[in-house]
């Protein structure tokens, strides 16, 4: 009985007689990105399960996991591009909606129609639209900023090429330049290394290091385990849930990789499936 007297009924509900469920505000207020308790479902099937992350300031952070682990979904859900079932996303301590200017997104290359009638410079200039605002046209200074960004990724010579005439690596660099011109604090990149040539890969790595040196934080979805140790300060191992998160040297262990890529998830997947089915009549 004495146990109960300490509990208000509300409290009791919160943890239903078990231990305290959660200590909510444990994030340092200035973390570039903190994701709290995020669950995401696609077509009523859970893809991400209860993700909690704090991305530290000024680090290159890689997200690694098998296909369908929800890596891209993690970025998209953080950016409100796909609906979340639950969860909160804070950017530098404030809700993402208020901090859009601090974040730049590099989507997967396949996400757009490369046959679209624009040239490389046009695409990069789109990075400045957020600053320009409604109905105001693009001025020369914006285009100059875009050209500078193209130069930073070594693509200035291709500024007036129609985008379908660029190689995969070049298209990726155009996307990176578009993010650069936003001059954000936090960069979220979805598979920037996928299908690019060696020269582009090196250029991207150099760029990532430049960003880190300038105190920016970069979160990169990555697929190549070979290069993880070389490229990233921190690592997130993801497979529906965060398997491990921390400095690359500590996290990139055989045991963790096995937990990420190995099986052992059959029960949870089954339960997720059952949950999805439960929604349907």
């Amino acid at each position, binding site marked *: 009985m004495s146990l109960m007297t300490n509990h208000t009924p509300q409290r009791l509900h919160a943890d239903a007689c078990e231990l305290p469920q959660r200590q909510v505000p444990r994030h340092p207020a200035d973390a570039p990105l903190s994701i709290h308790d995020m669950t995401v479902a696609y077509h009523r099937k859970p893809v991400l399960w209860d993700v909690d992350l704090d991305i530290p300031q000024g680090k290159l952070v890689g997200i690694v996991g098998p296909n369908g682990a929800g890596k891209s979904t993690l970025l998209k859900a953080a950016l409100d591009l796909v609906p979340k079932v639950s969860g909160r996303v804070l950017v530098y301590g404030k809700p993402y909606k208020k901090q859009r200017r601090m974040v730049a997104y590099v989507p997967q290359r396949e996400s757009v129609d490369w046959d*679209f*009638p624009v040239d490389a410079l046009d695409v990069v200039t789109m990075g400045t639209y957020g600053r320009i605002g409604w*109905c105001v*046209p693009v001025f020369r200074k914006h285009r100059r900023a875009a050209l500078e960004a193209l130069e930073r990724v070594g693509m200035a010579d291709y500024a007036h090429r129609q985008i379908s005439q*660029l190689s995969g690596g070049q298209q990726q660099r155009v996307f990176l330049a578009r993010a650069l011109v936003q001059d954000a604090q936090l960069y979220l990149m979805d598979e920037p290394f996928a*299908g690019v040539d060696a020269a582009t890969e090196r250029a991207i790595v150099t760029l990532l290091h430049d960003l880190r040196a300038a105190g920016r934080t970069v979160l990169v979805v990555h697929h190549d385990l070979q290069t993880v140790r070389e490229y990233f300060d921190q690592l997130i191992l993801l497979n529906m849930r965060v398997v491990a998160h921390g400095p690359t040297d500590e996290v990139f262990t055989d045991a963790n990789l096995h937990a990420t890529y190995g099986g052992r998830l059959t029960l949870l997947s089954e339960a997720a499936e059952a949950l999805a089915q439960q929604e349907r009549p």
Partner: protein
Amino acid sequence: MNAALLTLAALPGWSAVVDALLLKEHNTRVVVLGVTCLGLAAGVAGTFLLLRKRSLTADALAHATLPGVALGFIVMVLAGGSGKSMPGLLVGAFVFGLLGMGWLMAIRRTTRLKDDAALGIVLSVTFGLGMALVKIAETTPGGSAAGLDRFIVGRAASMLEAEAIWLPVAAVVVTLVALLLFKELKLLCFDGAYGATQGWPTGLLDALLMGLVLAVTVIGLQSVGMLLVVALLIVPAAAARFWTQRLGVMVVVAGVIGMVSGYLGAIASALFANAPTGPIIVLLCSVMFGVSLVFGARRGVVVRVARHVRLARRIGRQHLLRALYEMHEGTDGVGHVSRSRLMRARSWSAGQLRRLMVRLVREGLIRRAADGSAALTEQGRVAARRYVRNHRLWEMYLIEHADIAPSHVDRDADAIEHVLGDAMIERLEQLLAQRFPQMALPASPHPIDFVDARETRPADVR
């Protein structure tokens, strides 16, 4: 068919045509102006519609306006009016267009039906409702005189000046709004998700675009008709796509095509008493589309075929020179190669090889002996050496770096080297020259077997 067109063509005199073209006829001036501006607005709004890949949505919206027109008429009659007030009818059309759009979006969002079925449902059901309401409207007193079915196929000549005067104004306003939102619509159509991360309300932008499309539809109801106004939105934009790779230029070209079609179509309708304006405008657009499809400067069929033929010819020429050189590499390309050996070196037909050799002889790159064998001339050896060098550089580059360009990935090394610019070649040389500092010509990274070259060359096999 000719007979029908001839009866159309026989009527007006030359001076009447000139008068109409110069807008001297007071009666037609407003109508022509209205339809011309409509063409402009449709071309501009249609460009974004096309790039958003929503062309047929406009068709569904247009059909959805019919019940609005009929109901607008019935309501106005019930309210004591004559039911002929044009603004009233068009407001009804606009409202039902919006309702149709809402229904379309609801089906898209909440059912598992695909886009095409949703469009088909909205289009046919609203049109059926419109048909039923038009019939009812026609049986109400004063209704039969309204001639509501002119909204279906359009009849510009039936427009009264007082009513028509605000149509060009509306069309110009639509054009200006579309141009004002140029940057926003460009972002929406190219990469809406990225736009959303910058805080652009993509749902609202989508609705604005559809609003513009609906406005064009309503403006065009009277002159072009609801069944064909969709053509004015789609066809000029689709035609403009063949001429340019820049969105700004595409908007201008589409606007101009729309304007010219509208202008000529309206004049034709003024000259021929029973010529249907809408269909004539659409046919003019279609002719321009056909011309653009064939002759368009960027993506037209002729340009693409010419590009392909030129490339194929260049590749064939380089293949032949290289084969002649590599078969006598020890002597730096000096020596004859028999015709049968050349035939085996590549998968070219006898005819192709003969044409190639004729062309190269004419250019002075090879000589042919009486027995049909061929040898490089001095000039030919210089060219061949360069091609061989480029080819091997590129092969090594592929082996070392495996650049994957999506548009080129299905081509082998042989094809790629022909599209490389000088800058790229230079870069390749820099990258790889240090591996062969002593050689002007790097050795082939794989053995060259002349007996059946295709089998053993990795670049070819790939």
